[in-house]
């Protein structure tokens, strides 16, 4: 039997789930407390990136990027889909030595990747500093505009029959449904919790913490940059547990603006900018792209990534709570992996064949959830 599905959260993950579930024949009702794509989605860079923190992560990214490519023509130009690819940059020979095995791992996972030596690095991206050692190009990666992504996915879900309701905060989860802040009870065969960091407000014991990030954007300089650039040390920052870290990450927006990241902080729940960290982030970028020093940053902002202890999202049934499914905790990969999350979750809810191994993402992998 096909259940009615209620989705809590209208970020990119909730919206992607709404579309897939509606197209699979479910009667879908999405409840967003504020506006569509207004939380971590709006703060994100929008880099569709194959990241290999683990084989499972790489597989989820691969499916996510593939599905975004298929979705892009449907969703229209407001998505600002740009197949710019990623150029991973090595600072020195030690980092460059990691490129060959990494390329091979990508190829095994079915993702195209090529080594770039120091000599060709400048032909590929002329703004890079002369001392850099080389890199790895992943031509299949891309960029979108995340808040538009959430809105366009929601609109597509609406066209497929989903009911999308904004400005409607949920108060509590109840067996067989939810209760809204205004006291209304809504029953559903399945409830999907896709509220990012706010998911903990409904399940206090979820292993989720907020990991703050800073971003900065310049005004328009078309042609300055072709690929999204990321330092090869990025994974160390992304998957490390340091209180504060920065990693170089620079993205060409389709309008010519340059979007600069990234920082990661635990234990800072204030949205305020931290100038010292922003300075570290910018100085890091100047090591790779010295010409940035001539440009103006015109806006800066922060956001919060919902982070689990093993940096993998929570996707699947919540143990001990029949009918409740999680789709949250995507940290910095929520944009990339939203359509993959939606595909996996839809198959789990409907008992259909799964698009990838669900085990690395199951909520039950955490003992505090397994015994709930």
């Amino acid at each position, binding site marked *: 039997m096909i259940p009615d599905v209620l989705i809590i959260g209208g970020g990119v993950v909730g919206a992607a789930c709404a579309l897939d579930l509606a197209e699979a024949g479910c009667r879908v009702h999405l409840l967003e407390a504020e506006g569509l794509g207004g939380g971590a989605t709006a703060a994100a860079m929008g880099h569709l990136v194959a990241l290999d923190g683990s084989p499972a992560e790489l597989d989820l990214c691969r499916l996510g990027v593939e599905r975004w490519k298929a979705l892009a023509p449907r969703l229209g130009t407001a998505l600002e889909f740009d197949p710019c690819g990623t150029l991973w940059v090595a600072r020195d020979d030690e980092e460059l030595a990691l490129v060959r095995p990494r390329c091979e791992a990508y190829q095994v996972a079915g993702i195209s990747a090529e080594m770039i030596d120091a000599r060709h690095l400048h032909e590929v991206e002329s703004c890079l500093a002369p001392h850099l050692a080389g890199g790895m190009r992943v031509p299949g990666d891309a960029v979108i505009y995340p808040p538009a992504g959430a809105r366009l996915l929601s609109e597509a879900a609406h066209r497929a029959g989903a009911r999308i309701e904004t400005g409607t905060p949920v108060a509590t989860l109840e067996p067989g449904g939810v209760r809204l802040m205004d006291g209304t009870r809504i029953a559903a065969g399945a409830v999907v919790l896709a509220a990012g960091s706010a998911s903990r407000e409904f399940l206090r014991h979820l292993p989720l913490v907020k990991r703050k990030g800073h971003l900065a954007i310049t005004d328009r300089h078309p042609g300055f940059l072709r690929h999204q650039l990321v330092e090869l040390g990025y994974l160390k920052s992304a998957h490390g547990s340091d209180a504060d870290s920065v990693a170089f990450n620079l993205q060409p927006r389709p309008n010519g603006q340059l979007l600069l990241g990234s920082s990661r902080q635990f234990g800072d729940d204030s949205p305020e900018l931290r100038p010292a960290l922003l300075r570290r982030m910018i100085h890091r970028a100047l090591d790779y792209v010295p010409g940035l020093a001539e440009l*103006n940053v*015109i806006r800066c902002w922060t956001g919060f990534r919902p982070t689990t202890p093993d940096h993998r999202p929570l996707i699947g049934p919540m143990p001990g709570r029949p009918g409740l499914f999680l789709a949250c905790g995507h940290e910095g990969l929520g944009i990339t992996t939203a359509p993959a999350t939606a595909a996996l979750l839809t198959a789990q809810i409907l008992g259909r064949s799964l698009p990838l191994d669900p085990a690395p993402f199951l909520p039950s992998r955490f003992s505090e959830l397994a015994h709930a």
Partner: protein
Amino acid sequence: MPRVFVDGLTVDVPEGARLSAALGLPPVACRDLSGAPRGPLCGMGQCFECRVTVGGREVLACLTPATEGLEVRRG
């Protein structure tokens, strides 16, 4: 009274003024992607709406002193 040049036009501004004073009324510094005019809003270097080019470098008109002979290009 310093004299500056804005897109080739001669503009005299009061001593001690910033370049935003030379942008006319309404003051136009640059244009957004739709072609709509943008200009000084906050007047204190926060909004970045008054970006102009001086000597090949992008500066904020509201923070840049209008010194004698400056050539200003609007975006």
